[in-house]
């Protein structure tokens, strides 16, 4: 079974030296990558082999809120970093001079100075005037630049460690403060509750006050109306009492007059009574006489005529008497008592009597005449008359009784009027007084009215004020309730911390972000991080060596009729076999000698083979196309790629020319893919890199094929070369 790659390799089987050459080709990348990575595998793990000096000039300081307890932060720091393996370097406490001399001559790689005010500054964080505490680290780049960088990292660690402790202490105080705040706020809540209760009472009171004030206001309104009425009444009273006074005066005057008049009446009535007494007497006498007359008439009836004549005479005289005397006297009475009905009646009766008497006389005359004619009728008539006389007598008796009574009444009237007059006098006087009083009352009510108006204004204001007070009290209630509630809510939100809680939280707050521990796909060591770059470099060099030892293309084949693709492939396959061998040896060395571990071994190996394949394609192309010059080109490409592959610092940190060419160079993608796979990151990036490398491999192979096609044409220069590399 023969194949071109095997044939190409079998060239080397013949001599020991060529067999060794094969081994060398396979091993060189492992030597190159292994040596470099071994020396740089974990430099930072061995910093404790470097001596460094710490100079402590700290004077200490008194801790705040403590009974003279002293903080010796400098000593603490020295104690913390000087034990082996604690502070990065191998720290030794020295004097300043020793440290400076040591740094200058390279004995010490770094000098850490702790200033005299270090503790003081640290303590100040809890005080009124906090200041940052300073540390001073010096390195000498003349001895080692990288150590300077590392020292910076170490200083950062020391710094953050210190910051952690001081911040934790400070924050612990803050948490204690929270407890104070909590208890104070609790008091405030209680106070607010009490305030709220008081405000509620106030609000109730102010409600009542407001109701009362309104009632008062209403009452004052009513009072005002009443006082108005009173004033009006007092006005009327004043007027009335004025009238009353006038009237009473008039009354007093008229009662005096009446008194005087009634005296006259009494006198008159006395006289009337006297007259009627006499009339009575007279009437009695008349009656007696009439009786006698009757008897005589009776006798006349016996003796008639003489007697009638006599009667006629008698009537005549009686008539005369009555009509004469009676009429005079009644007229007199009527004069005296013009208003007295009795008197009037009396007068009428008297007239009637007179009339009757006339009639009687007539009749008597007639009777006498008739008697002359008729004795019987006369008798009857006499009887009639007699009856009438008797009635008259009775009436006169009554009249007299009345007159007597009138007289008595008039006397009574008079004495009454006297009293009335006296009373009227008193009344007039009283009415005067009343009027005066009423005037004063009116003045009073006027004043009262004004006063009440003022009072009304006041009471209205009082009512309004009471309303506002009530409203205000309501707000006060609401506000104080809200205050109490909110304070209570706030109280709930104010945390309290016990001791262990405080310590835990202080630690967390002191280092709220622990950024160092958050690394995706962390690699185990510095060397493992660099491995992607150095594996790529090693494989590039491996490719160069491969095509230094084996032919890029079998040149004899160019003179045959073999296809160019076959020729290119025949030159490429042995190369790639060497590449596989190089990858295998390289990773063997890395994993067994350097505890290198890839994120995914299988993919890392496959990708590395792809890297080797692409690099070999490039080298084959270089050598096939340009011969010895191609090897120089490969060397130049190596230099260019070291600068632009982004193996150590990202290519973005390089000058822009490198950034521009970076994507077109295979090592860039080799490093990207390997880095991802070794660290175990995003497979997509590795896949992308793999695709690019495959593409580059294909491009190089196709180019080599074209080169082979061109190489079949020999030029004169090739026949007679002027320079052979």
């Amino acid at each position, binding site marked *: 079974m023969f194949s071109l790659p095997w044939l190409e390799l079998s060239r080397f089987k*013949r001599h020991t030296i060529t067999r060794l050459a094969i081994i060398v080709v396979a091993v060189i990348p492992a030597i190159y990558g292994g040596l470099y990575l071994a020396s740089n595998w974990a430099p930072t793990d061995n910093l404790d082999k470097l001596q460094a000096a710490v100079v402590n000039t700290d004077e200490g300081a008194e801790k705040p809120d403590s009974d003279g307890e002293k903080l010796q932060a400098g000593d603490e720091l020295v104690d913390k970093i000087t034990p082996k393996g604690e502070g990065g370097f191998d720290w030794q406490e020295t004097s300043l001079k020793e440290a400076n001399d040591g740094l200058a001559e390279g004995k010490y790689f770094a000098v850490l100075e702790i200033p005299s005010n270090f503790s003081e500054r640290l303590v100040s964080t809890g005080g009124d005037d906090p200041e940052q505490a300073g540390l001073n680290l010096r390195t000498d780049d003349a001895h080692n630049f990288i150590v300077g960088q590392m020292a910076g990292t170490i200083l950062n660690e020391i710094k953050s460690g210190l910051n952690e402790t001081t911040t934790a202490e400070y924050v612990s105080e803050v948490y204690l403060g929270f407890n104070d705040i909590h208890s104070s706020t609790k008091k405030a809540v209680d106070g607010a509750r009490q305030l709220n209760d008081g405000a509620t009472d106030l609000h109730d009171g102010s409600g009542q006050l407001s109701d009362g004030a309104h009632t008062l206001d209403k009452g004052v309104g009513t009072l005002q109306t009443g006082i108005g009425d009173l004033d009006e009444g007092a006005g009327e009273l004043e007027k009335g009492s004025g009238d009353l006074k006038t009237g009473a005066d008039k009354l007093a005057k008229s009662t005096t007059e009446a008194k005087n008049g009634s005296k006259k009446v009494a006198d008159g009535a006395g006289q009337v009574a006297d007259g009627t007494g006499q009339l009575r007497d007279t009437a009695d006498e008349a009656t007696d006489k009439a009786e006698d007359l009757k008897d005589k008439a009776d006798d006349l009836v016996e003796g008639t005529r003489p007697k009638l004549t006599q009667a006629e005479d008698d009537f005549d005289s009686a008539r005369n008497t009555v009509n004469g005397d009676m009429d005079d006297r009644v007229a007199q009475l009527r004069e005296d008592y013009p208003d007295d009905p009795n008197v009037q009646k009396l007068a009428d009766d008297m007239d009637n009597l007179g009339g009757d008497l006339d009639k009687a006389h007539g009749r008597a005359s007639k009777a006498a005449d008739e008697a002359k004619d008729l004795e019987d009728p006369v008798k009857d008539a006499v009887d009639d008359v007699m009856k009438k006389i008797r009635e008259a007598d009775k009436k006169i008796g009554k009249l007299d009784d009345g007159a007597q009574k009138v007289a008595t009444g008039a006397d009574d009237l008079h004495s009454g009027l006297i009293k009335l007059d006296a009373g009227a006098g008193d009344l007039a006087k009283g009415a005067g007084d009343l009027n005066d009083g009423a005037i004063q009352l009116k003045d009073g009510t006027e004043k009262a009215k004004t006063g009440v108006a003022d009072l009304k204004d006041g009471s209205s204001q009082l009512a309004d004020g009471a309303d506002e007070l009530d409203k205000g009290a309501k707000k006060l209630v609401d506000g104080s309730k809200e205050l109490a509630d909110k304070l209570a809510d706030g109280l709930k939100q104010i945390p309290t911390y016990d001791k262990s809680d405080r310590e835990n939280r202080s630690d967390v707050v002191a280092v709220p972000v622990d950024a160092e521990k958050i690394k995706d796909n962390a690699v185990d060591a510095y060397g493992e991080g660099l491995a992607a770059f150095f594996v790529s470099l090693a494989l590039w060099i491996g490719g160069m060596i491969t095509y230094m030892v084996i032919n890029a293309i079998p040149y004899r084949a160019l003179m*045959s009729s073999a296809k160019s693709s*076959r020729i290119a492939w025949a030159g490429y396959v042995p190369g790639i076999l060497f590449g596989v061998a190089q990858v295998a040896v390289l990773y063997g060395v890395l994993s067994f000698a350097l505890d290198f571990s890839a994120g995914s071994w299988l993919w890392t190996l496959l990708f590395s083979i792809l890297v080797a394949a692409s690099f070999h394609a490039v080298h084959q192309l270089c050598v096939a196309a340009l011969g010895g010059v191609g090897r120089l080109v490969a060397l130049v490409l190596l230099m260019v790629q070291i600068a632009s592959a982004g193996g150590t610092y990202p290519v973005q940190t390089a000058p822009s020319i490198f950034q521009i060419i970076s994507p077109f160079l295979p090592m860039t993608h080799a490093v990207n893919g390997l880095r991802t796979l070794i660290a175990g990151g995003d497979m997509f990036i590795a896949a992308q890199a793999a695709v690019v490398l495959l593409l580059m491999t294909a491009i190089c192979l196709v180019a080599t094929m074209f080169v082979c096609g061109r190489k079949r044409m020999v030029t*004169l220069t090739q*026949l007679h070369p002027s320079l052979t590399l």
Partner: protein
Amino acid sequence: MQSTSQTLVDETEQAVGHVSLRGWGLSGKQGEVFSGLDLDVPRGSVAIIQGAAGSGKTSLLLSIAGRMRVTSGEGHVGELDIRKQPRLVRGQVTVGHIAGLTDLENDFTLAQHIAERLIMLQPWYKPWVSKSSLREVIDVIRETFASATEVIDRLPEGTFSSSDAKDADFLIDDEGKAFVSELSELQKFLLEFGLASLAQAPVVVLDNIDYLREREDRARAWAAILIYQELRSKRDPENPLTVIASCEDSSDVDLVLDALSTEVSPTSVSTLQLTQHPRH
């Protein structure tokens, strides 16, 4: 600057393997290498390019093989225009020996060399050759040598003998396990010729047979070429081999042709004399 042809070629039969050049010229940076060459090589014939060192023999052979660009003239290999279709011409014309271009790998065995050449001739999808097929090819070579030895044995005394055939035989062991470095110059030359013949192309070019320092070796080489040409035309009359070889001194050829006149009959043997151009 003349070519002589012993037989008139049917003009219509521009057959495969017929090489013709008209006004063929090459000039490089250092002046003209050759110019105005006219050459007709009928198929199955032998053309000898004769000229001193530096007269452009190698360049002419390479240009005929489609492996060097000329600057003037017109050339055909059969139907193919050499200047316009060099890739197809390269398939028709194989290169036997050109120093510096066809050098053998000293650390290869014969078998490896043959295997390498076989793989190169196979299509792309068959990049290997099994030991059995290699053995078959070696057997064919062995038979060819046997046939050639028979031809030599038929030759009259005083010309070539079987010892010459043995000297020429590069299959020094049955398996072909011997390394090339163990071969003589003649054997190497014939191995290169043999490898070129594996492609069974109609034309073969051979450069500078004079590099074989021994006169006997040169004669043996010529004899081997002519005998192989004869064997092949017998075996495959439709596909004879046209040989174009260059040398500084062609006197050996006539002797060999005389010696082999009974056994070999190339279509024609022509000689093209190249003159040294003054270089500037």
